[in-house]
C-alpha cells in the first residue's frame, strides 16, 4: 500500500517534469488554500467568543458583539477570496500542465513506429491522449481541490482544537485516525465489489451491443428470443451486483454519522468530566462544531485517495508511452539522397515485429528473413506473395517506417538510417493500400504534404494522371469535401486522390501497396492508367495483388514465408513454376475476382 503510494508520487513528479505548469507556483496555491480554509473555523471561534465573552459574563455590550461579528465577517471574506484564488490557480495549473502533457504524448506517439506497425494498438494510443489524460485532469482538478481543501481544513481544525484544549483535541485526532483506517479498509472491500460491477457492466453492454450490431443476422435466423434471453440475463446480473454495491457503499458511508454522533457524545462527556475547571462552555460548544468540520474532510480525503488509484493508472499508462524509446529516429546530422531515380539495395535484411510490453516485450517471429536484393534506378518492381509472406513489411522498410531487425538498406548508395527525414520524406513516397484521407477537400488532401500548392496545380495533377474527367464528375471539383476518412468517396476514388497526392510530391522512389479489394471495372482502368503515369521514370516498388501488375513489372520479387524465393520477369517465373507458378494458377482461377479470363492468354 505504502509502496503503491510512493509509486504514485514518483509518477506525479515525472508528469510534473514533462509538464512544468503543474508544479509552477504550487507553494503559493497551498498557502492560499490554508488561509482560505480558515473561513470554516471562523464560525466555531465566533461561537466560542460570543458565548464566553458576552453571553456567559452577563456584561454584553451590543457594540462589542458587533465588533466580534465584523471581524468574523471580514475573516470569512478574506477566506472566500483566498479559497477562490487557490482553487482557480489549481484549475489553471492542471489545465495548462495536462495540455502540455497531452501534446507531448501526441507528438511522441507520432514518432513511434508502433503507431503504423501495429494498427490494432492504435485505439489504445488514442486513449492515451484522450481518456487517460481526461482521468488525470479530472483527478487533479476535482480531486486536487478536495485534497488541498481537505488537508488544509483538517490541519486547521486540529490547530484550533489544540488551542482550546489539548486533551479533547488528542481524543478527536486519535478517533479521526482510527476512523480513517476503517474507511480505507472499507475502500478495499468496495474496490473489489466495483471490479465485479465493472465486469458485469461490460458483459451487459457486450450483450446489448451484440443484439444491436447483429440485428440483421438475428432477424435472418429468427434468433430473437434467444437474444432477448441472453440480454435479459446479462442485464439482470449487472443490476443485482450494481444495487448490492450501492447498498454496501451506503452502509459504509453511513458509519460517518454514527462516528460523528459517538465522537460528539465522547467530547461532551469528556468535556464535562475530564477537564474540570479548565474548559469554558464556549470552548466545548465550539468543539461540537469543530467535530462536524473534522469528519467531512476525512471522508473526502479517503474518497480522493481511492480515485487517485484510477488517476495513477492513467498517469502510468501515459508515462509508459512517453518512456517508449523512439525506435526510428531522424539522424543528426542527416545526409541527403542523391538526385534522380534511386537505386535500392538490401543486404541480409530481416525483420520481426516488436512485442507489446504487456506481452513480455522482445520480438515476435521473423516476418522477413535475410533479404538480399538490388533494384536498379528507374525500374518497376512488383512484390508478390501470399498473405503473411512479408511483402508489405518489405515496402515499409524501404521508406523507413520501420528499421530492419538485422541487415541494412541503402538508397542511392546512402545507408537509409543516415538519410535525414526531411530528404527521405520528400524523395520517397509511399501510397498505402487504403488511401487515407483527412476530413477536408480533395485539394487539401492532395496538397497535404505541401500546403502551399495552388488549386490550379492540383487540377493539373489530376489532368496529368488522366483523371480530369473524374474530377469534373464531382460536385465541386477539387473543392469537394471528402467527409470523415474520405467516406464520401468510394475505396477506388480514395485511391485516386492518394495517387494524386503522391504525384504532386514528385518522389524519386515510389512505394505502392495495391488495394486487395475489387473496384468497378471503369475505375479499375483509371487506377491502372494513373499508376502507370505515376511510376514512369522513377524507381517504383509495388506490392501486387493483381496478375496484371506483376505482368507489367520489369521485375517480380516473390516472397514466401518471409524469404525471397524467386525473382525475374513474369514470363520467366511462370516458366519456372514454384511459388509463383502456384500464385499464378490461383490468380488465373479467379481468386481476387479481378483477373478472370487471363488464363486464356498465359
Amino acid at each position, binding site marked *: 500500500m505504502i509502496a503503491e503510494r510512493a509509486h504514485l508520487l514518483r509518477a506525479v513528479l515525472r508528469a510534473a517534469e514533462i509538464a512544468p505548469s503543474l508544479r509552477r507556483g504550487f507553494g503559493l496555491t497551498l498557502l492560499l488554500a490554508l488561509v482560505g480554509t480558515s473561513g*470554516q473555523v471562523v464560525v466555531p471561534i465566533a461561537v466560542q467568543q460570543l458565548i464566553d465573552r458576552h453571553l456567559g459574563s452577563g456584561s454584553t455590550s*451590543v457594540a462589542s*458583539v458587533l465588533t466580534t461579528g465584523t471581524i468574523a465577517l471580514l475573516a470569512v471574506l478574506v477566506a472566500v477570496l483566498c479559497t477562490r484564488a487557490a482553487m482557480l490557480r489549481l484549475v489553471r495549473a492542471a489545465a495548462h500542465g495536462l495540455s502540455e502533457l497531452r501534446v507531448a504524448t501526441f507528438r511522441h506517439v507520432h514518432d513511434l513506429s508502433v503507431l503504423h506497425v501495429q494498427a490494432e494498438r492504435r485505439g489504445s494510443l488514442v486513449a492515451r491522449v484522450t481518456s487517460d489524460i481526461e482521468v488525470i485532469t479530472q483527478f487533479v482538478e476535482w480531486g486536487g481541490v478536495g485534497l488541498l481543501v481537505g488537508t488544509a481544513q483538517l490541519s486547521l481544525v486540529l490547530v484550533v482544537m489544540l488551542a482550546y484544549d489539548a486533551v479533547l483535541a488528542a481524543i478527536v485526532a486519535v478517533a479521526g485516525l482510527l476512523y480513517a483506517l476503517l474507511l480505507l479498509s472499507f475502500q478495499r472491500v468496495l474496490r473489489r465489489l466495483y471490479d465485479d460491477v465493472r465486469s458485469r457492466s461490460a458483459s451487459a453492454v457486450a450483450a446489448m451491443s451484440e443484439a444491436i450490431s447483429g440485428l440483421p443476422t438475428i432477424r435472418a435466423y429468427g434468433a430473437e428470443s434467444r437474444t432477448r434471453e441472453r440480454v435479459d440475463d446479462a442485464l439482470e446480473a449487472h*443490476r443485482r451486483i450494481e*444495487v448490492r454495491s450501492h447498498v454496501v457503499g*451506503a452502509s459504509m458511508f453511513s458509519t460517518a454519522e454514527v462516528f460523528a454522533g459517538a465522537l460528539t457524545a465522547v467530547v*461532551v462527556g469528556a468535556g464535562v468530566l475530564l477537564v474540570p475547571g479548565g474548559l469554558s462552555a464556549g470552548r466545548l460548544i465550539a468543539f461540537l462544531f469543530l467535530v462536524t468540520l473534522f469528519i467531512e474532510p476525512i471522508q473526502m480525503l479517503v474518497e480522493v485517495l481511492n480515485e487517485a488509484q484510477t488517476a495513477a493508472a492513467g498517469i502510468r499508462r501515459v508515462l509508459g508511452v512517453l518512456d517508449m524509446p523512439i525506435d526510428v529516429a531522424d539522424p543528426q546530422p542527416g545526409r541527403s539522397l542523391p538526385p534522380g531515380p534511386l537505386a535500392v539495395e538490401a543486404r541480409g535484411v530481416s525483420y520481426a515485429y516488436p512485442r507489446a510490453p504487456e506481452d513480455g516485450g522482445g520480438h515476435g517471429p521473423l516476418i522477413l528473413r535475410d533479404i*538480399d536484393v538490388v533494384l536498379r534506378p528507374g525500374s518497376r518492381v512488383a512484390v508478390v506473395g501470399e498473405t503473411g509472406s512479408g511483402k508489405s513489411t518489405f515496402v515499409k522498410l524501404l521508406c523507413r517506417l520501420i528499421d530492419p531487425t538485422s541487415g541494412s538498406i541503402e538508397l542511392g548508395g546512402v545507408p537509409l538510417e543516415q538519410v535525414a527525414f526531411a530528404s527521405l520524406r520528400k524523395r520517397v513516397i509511399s501510397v*498505402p493500400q487504403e488511401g487515407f484521407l483527412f476530413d477536408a477537400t480533395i485539394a487539401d488532401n492532395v496538397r497535404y504534404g505541401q500546403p502551399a500548392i495552388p488549386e490550379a496545380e492540383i487540377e493539373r495533377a489530376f489532368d496529368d494522371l488522366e483523371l480530369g474527367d473524374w474530377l469534373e464528375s464531382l460536385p465541386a471539383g477539387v473543392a469537394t469535401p471528402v467527409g470523415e476518412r474520405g467516406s464520401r468517396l468510394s475505396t477506388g476514388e480514395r485511391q485516386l486522390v492518394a495517387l494524386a497526392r503522391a504525384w504532386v510530391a514528385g518522389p524519386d522512389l515510389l512505394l505502392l501497396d495495391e488495394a486487395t479489394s475489387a473496384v468497378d471495372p471503369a475505375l479499375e482502368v483509371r487506377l491502372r492508367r494513373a499508376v502507370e503515369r505515376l511510376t514512369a521514370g522513377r524507381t517504383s516498388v509495388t506490392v501486387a495483388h493483381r496478375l496484371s501488375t506483376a505482368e507489367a513489372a520489369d521485375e517480380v520479387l516473390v516472397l514466401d514465408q518471409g524469404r525471397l524465393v524467386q525473382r525475374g520477369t513474369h514470363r520467366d517465373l511462370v516458366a519456372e513454376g514454384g511459388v509463383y507458378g502456384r500464385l499464378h494458377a490461383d490468380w488465373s482461377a479467379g481468386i481476387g475476382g479481378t483477373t478472370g479470363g487471363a488464363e486464356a*492468354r498465359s
Partner: protein
Amino acid sequence: MSAEPVLTTETSPLTVLGRGARLIVYLVRRFPGRFLAAVLGAVSFTAAIIASAFVVGDATDELIVPVLDGGEDVAGRLAPIVWLLLGISVWKAAGIVLRRGTAASLQVTAMTRLRRELIHRLLDASLRWYGRHGVGDLLSTADVDTKQATFVLAPLPFATGVVGLLVGAGVVVTGTDPVLGLAAVVILLLVVGVDLRGSWLTFEAMEEAQRRRGRVAAIAHESFDGALTVKSLGREAEETERFRRGTDHLRDQLVAVGGVWTRYRALTEGLPSAGLIVVLVLGAIRVDSGALTTGELVRVAYLLSLLVVPIRLLGYLLWDTAQSVAAWSRVERVLHLDDRQSHGRLGSSTSDTPAEVTTRGLTFGYDPEQPVLRDVDLTIPPGTVVAIVGPTGSGKSSLAVLLARLWDPDVGAVQLDGRDLRELAPGALPAEVAYVSQDTFLFDDSVEGNVALGTSLAPDAVAEALRLANAEVFVSALPQGAATPLGERGATLSGGQRQRLALARALVRRPRLLVLDDATSAVDPSVEARILRGLKRAARPSTVVLVASRRASILLADRIVFVEDGRVRAEGTHEELLATVPGYARLLEAYEQDAAERHEQARRATDSARARAHRRVQEGSMHPDVSAGQEET
C-alpha cells in the same frame, strides 16, 4: 457519443426543469415503492438532523453551561444526552442506508428496465428503421443514454429530503425566534439561489468543454489513423501543431469552467459561514435581551451549520436533470419507434422439396424516393441455382435482401410457393429461408452455438453442416473443436473461415431457399464449387439464389439474372446471355479486355528488362512459425 453536448446553450433552466419533471413523473410512477422508501429514508434523515440540533441545544442549556460556567454538578445530566446523541446518529445512519440504497436500486432498476425495453423494441424493429439509425448511435443510446436518462433518480429522493429540511429548518428557527427565523430564511434562500445559478452556469461551460474535448479526440483519432500518410509525407510537426490548437482551445475552456465553478464554490462555502455569523450576532443580542437562551442560539447555529453540505446537492440535481432530459429524448426515439416488422399467421411448410420463388412488380428503395429496384418480376423454379449478376449499385444485393425479407418492398410482393412472405407467422420464414451476407456476424459463443443459434438440433446436425460448408477441417483444428468459444465477434478467424461458419449456420437449418449475398467472396472458388455441389446432393435440397461478383461463382449457376439500374435486363443461361445481352457480355469482358491490353505492354516491358535481370533465388523452406495472421497493411 459522450463527446456530444447534452444541451444547447439556448435551453433555459425552466425548460429543462419542465421536461425533467415530466421525465421524473414517468419514471417514478413505474417504481413507486422504491421511490417512496427512498423519500422516507431522506425525510427520516432530515428529521434526525433537526433532532440532533435540539439535543445539542439542550446539552448547552442543561449540561454544558450549568456545569462548566455555573460550576454545577454533572449528576445524571450527561447520560441522557449521550444516549440521545448516539441514538440520533444511528437513526441518521439508518436513514442514509435506506435512502441511498433504495435510490440506487431505483436508478439501476429503472436503467435496466429501459435497456431491456429498448433491446426488445429494437429486436422487433424493421430493418428499414434500423438502417436509418446508425449502429454506433443505437449502441450509445443503449449504453450511455439509458444510464444518463435515469441519473435524475439518484439524487431525487435526497433533494426531496433537502427541501423538507429547508422548510423544517425555517420552521424550527422561526419557532425559536422570529427575528433569527427571518434572517435564516433569507440566508438559506440566498445560498440555494447562488448554488443553482452557479451549477447552471458551470454546466453550460462544461458542455462547451465537452464539445471541444470531442474535437480533440477527433483530431487524435484521425491523425493516428492516418499515421502512415502523416509519416510518409513527414508531417508530424504540422499534425502536432493542429493537435495543439485543439488542446489549447479545450484548455482555455477548462480554465473558463474553473473560473465559474470556483467563484460559485467559494461563494457557497463563504455565504453560509457569513450568514451564520450574522445569525450569531443577532442571536447574541437577543440572548442578551432575554428573548433567547444560549442553548436555543446554539441549536439554531448548529442546525444551520449542518445544512451547508445538503444544500449543495440541489445544484447536482439540476445538472443531473439537464443530462437526463437530453438523454431521455434519445431513448424515447427508440422506445417509441413505430416501424416494426409485421407478421402474418401462415405457418412454415413441412415440405422437403426446394421452394419456388416468385416476385411480382417489386419496387424498392432504402429511401423510397430513390428506388434501387423497379418493377422486378421473377420466377425462380424449385431446386435451381440462380446467380444475380450486375454492376456495382445495380440493386442485386437489395434483391437478395428482399427475397429473405430483411426488408419489405415498397410496392409488389415476394412469394414463396405462392405465399406472400409478409403473411408468414413469426419464426416461419427463418425455418424455410436462410440468408447469408458477405460480412459474417459471429456471436460471443462457441462454434456450435454460433451455428445452432438457439435452435434445437439433432446431435450430429452441426457436424454435418460444418462438413457441407467445408468448415470441418479448420474447426476440428481449434483447441476444443466445435465447442471452442469464439470470443467477441470471432476476431481470431479469417474472413474465409467466418464465411464458412455463416454458411454452416444457414445449412444446418436445411432451408428450402438459400440466399447467398456475396457470401463466398473470401472462400476459395474450388471450395465454393464443392459446397454448391454438396448442396445439390443434400438430404433436403434447396433453391439457391446467389449474388455473385466473381466469374468463377457465376459459372456455378444454372441460370443468370442480369440486373442493371434496378431492373432485370435479362434472364437465361450464361451462354445465352453472353451471346444476346451486350451489357452482360461487357461486364464479364471488362477485365479481360484490360488484362489483354496490359498483357501486351507487359510483354514489351519484360523483353527489354530481361537482359539485365539477374536472378538470385533463395529456395525457401517452410517455416510454420511465421504468423499467418499478421495484417498486411
